[in-house]
């Protein structure tokens, strides 16, 4: 599936849509950025509560396609600017990681892209 599919989740608010055709092949949940670095697959959508600029840096370095900031955490302006600069799509949601992951998994499943 592509990043654009994430915009169809009604609980996801689009904060920045970088490249809507970018591939999303996996999902990953994590708030420990070192764990995300080590274990998140490239082309994943990352569900996290770390709503700050460094998360964008991590996502960019490991090739994450999109970020979903969970639990209604508010996103700082500098994070949004960083997302624009690094061309990473950014969403926010009131859902928990688990609920958000379920939505993403449903999309991946219907896409037959499989899970990771």
């Amino acid at each position, binding site marked *: 599936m592509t990043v654009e599919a994430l915009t169809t989740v009604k609980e996801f608010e689009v904060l920045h849509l970088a490249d809507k055709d970018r591939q999303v092949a996996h999902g990953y949940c994590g708030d*420990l950025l*070192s764990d995300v670095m080590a274990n998140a697959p490239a082309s994943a959508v990352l569900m996290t509560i770390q709503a700050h600029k460094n998360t964008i840096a991590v996502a*960019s370095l490991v090739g994450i396609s999109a970020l979903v900031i969970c639990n209604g955490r508010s996103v700082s302006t500098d994070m949004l600017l960083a997302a624009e600069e690094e061309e990473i799509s950014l969403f926010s949601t009131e859902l928990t990681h688990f609920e958000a992951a379920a939505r993403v998994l449903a999309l991946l499943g219907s896409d037959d892209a499989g899970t990771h």
Partner: protein
Amino acid sequence: MQEIPINTVTSANVVLELIYRLKIKDVMTTNLITATKETTLREIQQIMRREKITGLPIVMGKRLIGLVSMDDIIQALDQGYIEERAREHMSRNLIILEDDMPISFAINYFDRYRYHRFPVLNKDNELVGMITNRDITNALLIEINREVEELERRSQRIEGGILSHEMYTYRIMQNNFENAGHASTEIKKRLKSAAIEAPIIRRAAIASYELEMNMVVHSHGGRLIAEYGAEELTITATDTGPGIEDTDAALEAGYSTAGEWIRSLGFGAGMGLPNVKSVSDTFHITSSPKGTTVTVTITLTGAEERNHDS
């Protein structure tokens, strides 16, 4: 004329970094020669001559109560009260420095007040040292010499290196989360433009980011050096302290000395160094209270995907 002809705002970056990094306690004289308020000015004059110093702090225990300078002695000789005690004639309105201040403060003080020395107090208001402009110039000379040596060593390596040899140095500042990731992003871009395979770039990015973050979180600042060879990338992270007490423990996943707010940002979970090690082809660490140096290499050639745990 300036006492110390260094501008604390627009000097070379290397110098600015030094005068903000070096603390007064790193350069002050701690071998204190003091007198009490009952000491006579004559005795103080003799101590000054014997010790070749031009000012003597007057103390009560560890507390500083005054200062007798060469000027005070000259005046005493002139006015004929050299046999009297310090308490009558010592300067009591003293300008002092604190041992934790960077030496940039001292440089500004020497400029602003025309004294040749300042007493240095610690947080508990105890006299712990004296600082003269000479202490500062000596320390700066030593440190600047070290920086120049490093520059010479580096430029030699570039001249003597093979054609593909490139080297970049990134300064990492303590607690500068704003720019954390800058060096790693640059390294990633450079590898990408050289058409290195994605999994290898990812490993280089992970290693450099974790090393960068480690310095931001734990060190007093340092630098990250990326050297590109034809076959491999060498990343060296070197900081100026405080050192890792137990490097073996630091390499165990989950070991962390990070504070609460660092953890709240998603760092400091004790995965940094283990991550670096697992993505690198060689890994080397040395640490002392003066600083930690981690050197890793990542082989850039060869299609086989290294079996690292991810």
